[in-house]
């Protein structure tokens, strides 16, 4: 169907529209799990600090 890579990228003159649509979807769909992962790591870090702080509290009381 495509005779050359450049023909593929030109998309029969619709390059701007086709690639803007697919590109926006790709950016959003890749960014979303990345952002969630960062948030998950931040929660784990905070929980670890809390657990550690509690342990120190207990040890200093003993």
């Amino acid at each position, binding site marked *: 169907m495509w005779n050359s890579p450049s023909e593929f990228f030109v998309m029969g003159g619709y390059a701007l529209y086709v690639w803007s649509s697919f590109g926006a979807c790709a950016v*959003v*769909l890749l960014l979303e*799990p990345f952002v969630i992962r960062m948030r998950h790591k931040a929660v784990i870090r905070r929980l670890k600090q809390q657990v550690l702080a509690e342990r120190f509290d207990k040890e200093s009381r003993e």
Partner: protein
Amino acid sequence: MSKVNNFSTTNSHWINWFKWSSPSTFYPVAGKLIPVFWILTAIFGIAGLWVSFFVAPVDAVQGQGYRIIFVHVPVSWMSMLIYLVMAAWAGIGLIFNTRLSSMMAQALAPIGAWMAFLSLWTGAFWGKPMWGTWWVWDARLTSELILLFLYLGFIALQASIENPRRADKAGAILALVGAVNVPIIYFSVKWWNTLHQGASVSLTKAPAMAQTMLWGMLLMVLCFWMYTIAVSLMRVRTLILEREAHSDWVRQLNEVKQ
């Protein structure tokens, strides 16, 4: 006597669904399911993109520009489907007072909002070359825009209420009332004579498109479906940790303890 025994053994094979409604049992299960859904997303995504760009023939009227359909239709379907699932979870949370159901609703809202945004975005980039305009106040476009606002309203309302259980209840009512909009979007092209074309795929008649185009679209829909499940499971796990931070089982988790 034997009858009674029989009953009790079959009974023990039933899945205890209420067990899974507890965040502490669901958290590790969700963690194991996430990679499965990512693999499925990749398989359907690669197959779908390959059919979209290398198998589906060029359109007689719209040339190569029609290929936007392979993302536009899946994101639009998902934006509506996610809303219905979100409203259902929110409703279950409201009726049975189950925390996890409300967390599922909360986890689905951002991904649904992104799908609605992408539906409008890809629609604009399709409308410009084919209709000559980025936007018209057509029934389908307007109702899809309202869907985006409903998602954003749900997120904003929940964020504005400090107590999470009260936030869940207020959000659930908004989500359930807003569900009226979904059939309006779906049937808008039938009820009003608008610029947006009619349904490409219908349950009652043969699809008005080439077989390979249909296959490409269905593969892309499956990819987005698996993606949504994977991402919402990831988000619900984060929400569980945030909300249950003070419970013992969270403190006992391996990733927290060490």
